[in-house]
């Protein structure tokens, strides 16, 4: 049956069959190229527009929540509840001035909500994650209530840099529990889940794009071979040396194959750069920032609520180890000491990286690229922050809680964190912005290079097909 179907006894049948083979090869070439370019587009979109920004948004939830918590803790520590509670919407105008920390708290609360909504919008097809976002928003209300209660109970007593009244401390502990055991973990988990989405929508397409280039070249070659076959057959059978149409088709195919293959190679580079020099450091440094904020909050919580100080000390140490891991450090005392020597050593000429954690990765990558200076600055600031922490701790251990609390905040503006912390935080933020620029630029360039292809690819496929048909048509017409 099929033998009879495909018996190619007559010349026009053979020409038709050869043409069909050529056209088929063209279709396969362009379909695979299209899919490979589609992969590139999807990977760029994931990093630049979809999952990537969502991960950053969820991390913003974490940062905003940490900032809110820091304001609350600071106000309770400095005994400034009165100004916090000042109601500016009161009838007849307020008789008091609402404090800056309260304004900052409200602003960051809005930031947290907005970032959570963005995360929700991008996670709309994932019920588990949506429920997490929802419960963060719900928990925020509970947190507000506890904070309000703590402020109201703390306002009566004069406790600036001293011990918080017990009834206020109870509310504060409840608020802290909501923040550290419910809201922050969920924000953190959302970020992690988003990050693994980015990994998933990046790794496979990237390696496919890399192999896709070979595919395109091989398929392009197949088209050329098929074209050559057709050309040779026509030349022998019809005594025509060259068909200009077929030559044009071959030239177009060659041009397109080379262009597509090199485009795929550049796109793969864009995607890889956007991920490894952009998104990855953005995420890592943002998480370092988040950890740094909660680290700072742990220190101040230990001062405000000495009954739980043991646990805060341990989490402080663990978070320090997450940021910059020193395997040999057994407790904070040895950590401070080893940090000193290792950071100094990294600042030296050979830049040996003798630590792990977020900073370890950052330092290693910087050393690989030969750009140690910015990381060195960050590390120096981190060390300065830890040095101040050591001083706070020593004061606290000597039972000079008031001095310890004062050493923890800015000497001039007690509602601000210590300059050491702020510098460290700002330094991290600046690096995040810099790497985010890499993401934006790579995604923009990558998408720019892809922009003409949605019409260029089908159009050139049609042109090549038309050229092939145009080359064969007059010969077939001779048999009509």
């Amino acid at each position: 049956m099929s033998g009879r179907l495909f018996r190619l006894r007559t010349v026009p049948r053979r020409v038709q069959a050869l043409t069909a083979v050529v056209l088929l090869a063209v279709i396969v070439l362009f379909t695979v190229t299209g899919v490979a370019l589609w992969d590139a587009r999807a990977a760029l979109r994931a990093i630049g527009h979809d999952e990537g920004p969502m991960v950053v948004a969820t991390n913003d939830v974490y940062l905003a929540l940490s900032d809110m918590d820091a304001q609350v803790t600071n106000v309770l520590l400095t005994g400034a509840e009165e100004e916090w509670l000042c109601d500016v919407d009161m009838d007849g105008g307020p008789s008091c001035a609402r404090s800056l920390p309260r304004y900052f708290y409200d602003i960051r609360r809005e930031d947290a909500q907005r970032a959570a909504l963005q995360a929700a919008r991008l996670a709309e097809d994932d019920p588990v994650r949506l429920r997490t976002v929802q419960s963060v928003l719900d928990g925020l209300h509970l947190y507000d209530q506890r904070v309000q209660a703590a402020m109201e109970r703390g306002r009566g007593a004069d406790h600036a840099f001293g011990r918080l009244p017990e009834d206020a401390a109870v509310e504060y502990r409840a608020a802290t529990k909501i923040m550290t055991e419910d809201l922050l973990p969920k924000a953190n988990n959302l970020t992690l889940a988003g990050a693994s989405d980015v990994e998933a929508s990046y790794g496979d397409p990237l390696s496919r794009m890399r192999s896709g280039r070979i595919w395109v070249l091989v398929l392009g070659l197949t088209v050329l071979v098929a074209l050559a076959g057709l050309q040779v057959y026509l030349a022998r059978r019809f005594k025509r040396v060259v068909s200009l149409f077929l030559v044009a088709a071959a030239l177009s195919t060659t041009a397109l194959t080379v262009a597509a293959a090199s485009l795929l190679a550049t796109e793969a580079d864009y995607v890889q750069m956007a991920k490894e020099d952009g998104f990855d450091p953005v995420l890592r440094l943002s998480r370092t920032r988040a950890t740094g904020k909660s680290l700072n909050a742990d220190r101040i919580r230990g001062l405000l609520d000495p009954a739980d100080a043991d646990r805060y000390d341990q989490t402080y140490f663990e978070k320090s180890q997450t940021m910059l891991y020193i395997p040999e450090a057994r407790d904070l005392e040895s950590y401070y000491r080893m940090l000193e020597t290792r950071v100094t050593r990294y600042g030296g000429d050979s830049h040996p990286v003798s630590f792990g954690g977020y900073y370890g990765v950052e330092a290693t990558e910087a050393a690989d690229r030969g750009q140690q200076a910015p990381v060195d600055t960050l590390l120096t600031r981190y060390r300065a922050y830890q040095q101040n922490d050591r001083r706070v701790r020593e004061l606290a251990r000597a039972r000079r809680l008031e001095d310890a609390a004062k050493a923890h905040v800015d000497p001039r503006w007690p509602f601000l964190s210590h300059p050491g912390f702020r510098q460290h935080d700002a330094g991290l933020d600046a690096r995040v912005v810099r790497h985010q620029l890499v993401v934006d630029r790579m995604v923009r360039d990558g998408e720019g290079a892809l922009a003409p292809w949605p019409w260029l690819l089908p159009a050139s496929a049609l042109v090549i097909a038309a050229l092939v048909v145009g080359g064969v048509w007059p010969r077939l017409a001779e048999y009509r």
Partner: protein
Amino acid sequence: MRVLRKAMIVIVAVLLVGVALVAYRAGGGEATASIIGKKSLRIGVKSDQPGLGLRMWDGTFTGFDVDVATYVAGRLGVGPDDLSFVGLTSKEREAALDDGTVDIVFATYSITPERKGKVTFGGPYYVAHQDILVRAGDRSIKNVSDLRGKRLCQAAGSNSWRRVTEERKVAATLVAASNYSECVTALKEGRMDAVSTDDLILAGFAAANGSGTTMVKAPFTNEKYGVGLKKGDVEGCQAVNRYLTEMYQNGAAKTLLTEWFGSVDFAVGASVPEFEGCN
């Protein structure tokens, strides 16, 4: 005939394009050993901790860890009949994962930076806190510093006592015992004053032993109980995290915690813990 031939040509063309696409899409994504897609799972659990992982007389295992493991395995598509539990001691856990004796470990496995170098951790599925168990009615111990001069149990193979005498430098008198059951018996008989380890472990003992002992409820550490996976199983880790989130959302975690530790009066965490991350 002509129509048939044209149809055949179209079919062949579509097939060819399809085959090329499938071949192209199959590229990329190197396969790593993962718990995803396994038909059966061997799960490492503790065999001597009431409430968490305890081997019964008939060789079966019971406890919170066992139930959480069963839940997660179920969500991974492995039913209870295809699970086999393996009792592990603290020291055996890394090697058992590494050589494939077990696929996954739920055995009060605290996530630490050192261990993260050798094991990929899902979770934590619970954050326990080190606490102190005393005889009911003993009011002299209210927090960890009150252990100064008291007789504190030093269970073999456990590091909990270090947190007291080394990390916090509280000068308690250590009294050796072979395991925590022995500690609790000695505590009830008055040969010791305090037993200090993770609250879930203590809660299990306090519940199992009736009213003879009580928990001080002054937690002083965080112990993150992780799900141990073979190093590099990122995909498995992400799935585990997802199912753990779900377990807390749908109330299964709370049910299990109440079931195993509800009779002891201490605050169990009912919210999903902060995950470590899979990389």
